[in-house]
């Protein structure tokens, strides 16, 4: 019986997943604090509490995310890119291109059918094309960011946003609100503006089907729809797990590989 854990310390949320005999038995997500070690410890505590598993039962643990190397109770730190790729393909075996849009960055990952990382690309410039862009726009509209997707699918005349800059786009949103444009149309415009940036990044890497999305923005149906249209491809949705947990799932899978290797070397 192998129990392993994976942690993903992101800029906005910290996630943890426990796998027991290759099945997810628990997952937790909390708001990240300023110190990654503390966030990781907190989410670990929450997860152990919910699952009733003891820390000592965990054979191997892998961490990912920006604070990964500072987590003291992991066996290895692995990049989010590898973890998101791993996690996504585990849930959708046909996945070859993974688009991860997190709070602060955006990554596009290509894997081969063996799950090997072939190529990746990340945004380097600014917040547009990341979850931060949606957060800021949702705040201007005084709605929860989770509403952006739901509202946008009801849009009949999506706004075209002139600006791609997160800062200037706020002024655009206010302008449209004052012009009494519908909330749905503004949301659709915001999602499309986001999708435009992501599409440009994605097209730079020669995508291959199947494509799926991970990270919090994958839950925004409006962005997913707009992105699919821009890429001219269907984006397969991850249904078996929360897309925000994919990084932690991937980390746990790496931990599992380590555990199996340990077991076989001990057996040998």
């Amino acid at each position, binding site marked *: 019986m192998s129990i392993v854990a994976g942690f993903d310390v992101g800029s906005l949320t910290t996630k943890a997943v426990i796998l027991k005999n290759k099945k997810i038995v628990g997952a937790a997500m909390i708001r990240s604090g300023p110190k990654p070690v503390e966030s990781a410890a907190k989410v670990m505590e929450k997860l152990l509490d919910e699952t009733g598993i003891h820390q000592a039962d965990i054979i191997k643990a892998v961490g990912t995310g920006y604070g990964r190397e500072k987590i003291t109770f992991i066996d290895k730190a692995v990049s989010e890119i590898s973890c998101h790729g791993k996690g996504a393909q585990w849930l959708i075996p046909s996945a070859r291109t993974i688009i991860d849009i997190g709070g602060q960055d955006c990554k596009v990952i290509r894997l081969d059918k063996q799950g090997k990382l072939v190529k990746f690309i990340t945004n380097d410039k600014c917040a547009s094309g990341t979850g931060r862009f949606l957060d800021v726009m949702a705040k201007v509209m005084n709605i929860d960011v989770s509403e952006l997707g739901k509202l946008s699918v009801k849009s009949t005349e999506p706004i075209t946003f002139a600006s791609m800059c997160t800062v200037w786009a706020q002024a*655009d949103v206010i302008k449209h609100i004052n012009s009494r444009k519908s909330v749905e149309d503004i949301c659709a415009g915001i999602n499309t503006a986001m999708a435009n940036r992501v599409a440009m990044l994605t097209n730079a890497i020669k995508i291959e089907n199947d494509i799926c999305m991970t990270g919090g923005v994958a839950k925004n149906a409006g962005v997913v729809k707009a992105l699919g249209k821009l890429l001219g491809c269907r984006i397969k949705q991850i249904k078996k797990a929360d897309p925000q947990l994919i990084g932690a799932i991937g980390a746990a899978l790496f931990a599992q590989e380590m555990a199996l290797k340990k077991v076989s070397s001990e057996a040998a």
Partner: protein
Amino acid sequence: MRPELKEYNLDKLFAGTFMVARNLGSSTPGEIKNVLKYTPYVGGLLGPVLATGKPSITFFDLFYDYYSNIINAEENGKKVVMTTFCFDPSIFYAIDNLVPVTLEIGTALTTMLWKRGSSDFMDYCTEIGFSETGCSSQRGAMGAYLAGLGAKIDLVALNMGGVCDTNANAYNFAAQYLDIPYFGLDYPSELTTEEVREYHHKDYRGLINFLQENTGCKFDINRLREVLEEKKKQDVLMNEIEEMQRLVPNPVPGIYHIMIYAARYIYSGKKKFTKLLGEMVDVVRENAKNGRSGLKNGVEKNRTFLVYIDNYALGTAMFQWFEKKGISHMGNILSRTFNQDAPYTTGVPGTTYNIDTTNLDTMIDSLADINARMPMTRTIRGPYDAPNMWLEDSLSLAKQYSADCCLYSGTPGCRNTWSNVKLLSRDLEAMGYPTHISYGDSFDPRVETWESTETRLEEFYQIRGLL
């Protein structure tokens, strides 16, 4: 790039648009009104240009010619050379089987005529590996050509090395991406020395060899002479317009600037450009004779000299805003030719060009000298405060044209000017010229929307008491 965009050939769209536009000369005002009603984006350019009267139809006709040359090039056995706006195309028109296409004109047109501007093409450049921070003026049209949505490009020839890295870099990228021959004329940082003149002349001969090798065609000297003689006529006409611009009020309609320089960059040396200029001179003379401003409402409240380029990010919005505010457009860095008889020349030896059509050598030297004085190539090749460089040129032109203030509008991709525009602005202010620096992108409204740019302009003119 959005899949549906791959259905459209950019050059054919332009050719089609201008083919229809040039026929509007025989339309009634009511018919034109209907056309504009159904072309809300294209109308942004068509409307203001049509309002200029006779020159507008010649302008559309010229552009139709230009684009139909491009779309029919392959069929007609001609090669297409990709070049930049500040490379005088006369040389290309002296070669029988060569047709030029100028990226910046294509970008400006796409930005002005399409709903989403040229952003899709710009983003496509990034998708294929070009730097996103590169100048938008090339990226708009370049994306289309590199995606195969324009004419097939056979070679690249331009002048920009030494003056604008970003520009030359874009063309170099295009050449490497398409794996086609490339030639760049190099420009040292000085303008008037004999040494640099000799360098220009030798470099230009290198260009001639390159063109001959890559087109398989020899120069037709008589044709070259004909093109340069035509260019002389064009210089005379442009000089007259520049001279009249010194009047108060300025009798030159603001939009003439973009019409003149856009046509010059693509059709210098061709008869239709001469015709366009002639028609414009008639209008300006008439205005001048009657002491009339080139502004539609006739009231000149301010004379603004643009130290760099115009803003094209929302059609002709900037020009319309100038009209609304009563601001006379006193030209920009793109407007001037620096031929030796131009009214704004300072008489300093080596700063202007002269066209000598005596023999092939003198003609090639003349072309080399013309190119060395093209916009940007002349003005921003050396330190901004060196003789005959940006500061001196700006001050001298602002004074000659009695400018009340100066305006900088460019693109974030312009490393050259962004590296010293603060210095220039400081010195212009010290010399009594209120100067506004616009942080938008003249070709990409996503950087700063026209509304934001306009708000800042309003602030500047209001706070500085300029209107």
